[in-house]
């Protein structure tokens, strides 16, 4: 069978799966699964037979993990979901990230309150990863507006990068056994000390296999005292960070994405700090093709004005077809696709529930 493009769209009222041939002319929509329950994280696991995962963050009955083995035609709960041991004293509030681990069926989950969990059996059983979950800093992290969440998990051999809001960027170089805060240059404009060891409100971090050591970060910018501190780049595995925000209309935003075939091409959606919508209510994706040295505004096909939606931290992704399209979902329930890396946008779905996250994969 030829390649198919699959989108997992996590929303306030469940997860949807959209599927299209690689031309992406028309997407068929399935769902919602876990209907009525918020989904903050999804994963298309293409190791072996494709499996789809979604967190089902139920404020009534607690956390569940949903799994599909038929490309999102049906989902079932896994046998258990991440849960803190009784003696820990913390209670699970949300699951914010799901990522493949190094083992064949291994999954990692970043949760709220910020902690990391590991499953060795595809999500049926989970254990807390103590190196970060019980870190000396863990009880000193504080919640941002979205809660105290571990939203980013990036693996690079024995290196593991974690993003915590608000906690900052943490780096492990021993496969996740131990972690150190690694935030030199990451601004924290809302604190008296704007460059603390930890406590930054990091919004999202991405990397590319072809550029070892390089990371891009969307941080909580928008402060004139730490101007430019919202969009950052590291070239030394996250030890130090520098601004790449010059040329953007705002250094505040939530998502950041890197092109799957070009480590120098990175995307952000700058937002106004007060409304958390695009500056002047005019939606735009901004693309840099030289690692953040210069930015181009991409608006073709998007509404020209009067748009006050927000794009949340995990609501933007790029597929890995020959000519990748970029996708983003809005808090007003729209999902947009920008062909040719964002050159021309079209609305795929215009009346979904508020979109929390979008993942794109070729299967």
């Amino acid at each position, binding site marked *: 069978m030829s390649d198919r493009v699959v989108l997992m769209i996590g929303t306030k009222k469940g997860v949807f799966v959209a599927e299209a041939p690689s031309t992406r002319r028309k997407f068929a929509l399935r769902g919602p699964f876990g209907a009525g329950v918020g989904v903050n994280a999804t994963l298309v696991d293409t190791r072996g037979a494709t499996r789809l995962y979604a967190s089902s963050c139920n404020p*009534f*009955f*607690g956390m569940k993990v949903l799994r599909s083995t038929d490309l999102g035609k049906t989902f079932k709960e896994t046998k258990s979901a991440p*849960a803190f*041991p*009784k003696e*820990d*004293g913390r*209670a*699970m509030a949300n699951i914010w990230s799901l990522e493949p681990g190094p083992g064949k069926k291994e999954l990692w989950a970043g949760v709220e309150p910020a902690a990391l969990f590991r499953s060795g059996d595809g999500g049926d059983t989970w254990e807390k990863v103590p190196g970060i979950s019980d870190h000396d800093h863990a009880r000193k992290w504080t919640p941002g507006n979205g809660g105290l969440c571990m939203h980013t998990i990036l693996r690079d051999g024995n290196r593991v990068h974690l993003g915590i809001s608000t906690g900052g960027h943490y780096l492990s170089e021993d496969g996740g056994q131990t972690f150190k805060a690694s935030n030199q240059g990451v601004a924290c404009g809302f604190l008296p000390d704007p460059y603390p060891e930890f406590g930054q409100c990091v919004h999202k971090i991405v990397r590319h296999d072809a550029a070892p050591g390089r990371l891009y970060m969307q941080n909580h910018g928008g402060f004139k005292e730490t101007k430019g501190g919202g969009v950052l780049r590291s070239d030394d595995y996250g030890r130090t960070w520098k601004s790449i925000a010059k040329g953007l209309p705002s250094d505040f935003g939530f998502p950041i994405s890197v092109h799957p075939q070009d480590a120098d091409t990175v995307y952000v959606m700058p937002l106004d700090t007060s409304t958390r919508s695009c500056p002047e209510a005019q939606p735009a994706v901004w693309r840099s093709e030289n690692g953040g040295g210069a930015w181009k505004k991409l608006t073709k096909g998007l509404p020209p004005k009067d748009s006050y939606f927000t794009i949340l931290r995990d609501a933007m992704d790029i597929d890995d077809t020959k000519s990748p399209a970029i996708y983003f979902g809005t808090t007003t329930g729209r999902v947009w696709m920008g062909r040719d890396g964002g050159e021309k946008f079209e609305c795929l779905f215009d009346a979904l529930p508020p979109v929390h996250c979008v993942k794109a994969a070729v299967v």
Partner: protein
Amino acid sequence: MPDVRSALRAVEESHPHLYSSICDETGAVRRHVNLFVNTLHVRDRNGLDTPLVAGDVLTILPSVSGG
């Protein structure tokens, strides 16, 4: 004397998956779950220490709300 707390403990032992939908990891009853002994909400009696006697009915009733 048995009470609501001990009844929940019995649920935890016999139906752990159900228990995790009623109480979080700390043992606290989830925010949207209501417990009634007969017709009275336990918050209007003695919370989880509300005693149970033979013939009492403990009802576990989630709120139906949202938007």
